[in-house]
């Protein structure tokens, strides 16, 4: 069964929530963070939120899809885009721009559900990565399956760019370790 089919099937089965509510809740969180601290810090905080979500979200992902271990990073990328994104956010980003060593790819999120109805104030455009939470989610989720990745936005439509692009880079495969005192 193709990956997009799996993503769609799982999505059909889960309980859903109105996307507008989701968007405006996320928007209110970001806006409140921006009121309290500077943009650099907001980016960091959003990433951290995402990371915490990611390490829990992977459980839900594995439980619902019964996914097997991916053979290489290329398959991981496809899984993230076609199953993960589809299942949780009901969109499928495109994968482009593979590096030669197959360790880095770009996710193009042109219909980013988080950024619906959003317009950034001028001074935020050069500093804020509005959807930075997604980077954290990917990092957290992949870390739980032994992949140490780095994810960051390089372009965002909200900043006036043509596309919304996130780079994901595999730093290393983590060794499976038994947690201390748990043998």
């Amino acid at each position, binding site marked *: 069964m193709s990956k997009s089919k799996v993503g769609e099937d799982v999505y059909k089965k889960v309980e859903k929530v*109105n*996307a507008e509510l989701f968007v405006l809740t996320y928007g209110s969180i970001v806006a409140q963070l921006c009121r309290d601290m500077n943009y650099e810090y907001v980016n960091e905080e959003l990433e951290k939120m995402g990371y*915490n979500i990611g390490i829990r979200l992977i459980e839900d992902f594995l439980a619902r899809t019964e996914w097997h271990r991916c053979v290489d990073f290329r398959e991981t990328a496809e899984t993230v885009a076609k199953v993960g994104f589809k299942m949780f956010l*009901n969109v499928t980003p495109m994968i482009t721009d593979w590096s030669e060593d197959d360790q880095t790819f770009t996710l193009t999120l042109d219909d980013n559900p988080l950024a619906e109805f959003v317009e950034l104030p001028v001074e935020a455009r050069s500093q804020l990565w509005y959807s930075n939470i997604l980077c954290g989610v990917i990092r957290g989720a992949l870390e739980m399956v032994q992949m140490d990745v780095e994810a960051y936005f390089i372009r965002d439509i909200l900043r006036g760019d043509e596309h919304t692009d996130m780079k994901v880079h595999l730093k290393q495969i983590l060794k499976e370790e038994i947690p201390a005192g748990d043998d």
Partner: protein
Amino acid sequence: MIVHQQLPMSVNLASFDFLLIEMVHMARRLSEKQETALSNDEQMERGYTFLENIGFQVGRKLTERLLLTRNRIVESIDVMRFLCRELWPIVFRKQLDNLKTNRKGTFVITDNYFFWFSKMTAATGTEMKEYTTPYLYFPSGFIRGVMHTFGYPVHVIAQCPNLPACIFQVRFPAP
């Protein structure tokens, strides 16, 4: 749930849950990180205000969005009904169970099965209060935001008498 079907786009409910729960965790993290000149209580207070404000914004925006397609409501009792029957289910999945009023501008609304509390282990006394308090600020702010949109600057007091129930007292200003 009428609204769910009207709007074509949807996302996984789990994503929304993850977001809201992490929001509460973040508020705690932020309040702990603030300068140490503040006392513990003041720091907590900041985290709570943070959550309350987010709830307020969500309530305000959602109400404005829904009012685009319907008639304006004026009377306080009708506004409360609108909250219980239509807005609450969108965010908190089910209608509120009970709406009482003393007819002098105070309303008491009860959710017997508040969804955030439904997955908590049973606790009692101060322990329960400690667990549940941070989760009460978002819904209180939400109610305030909704009422604000209708022009009522209300006061909301929330409490959790026992899990998983949740009671909100909404006081309207004297006319």
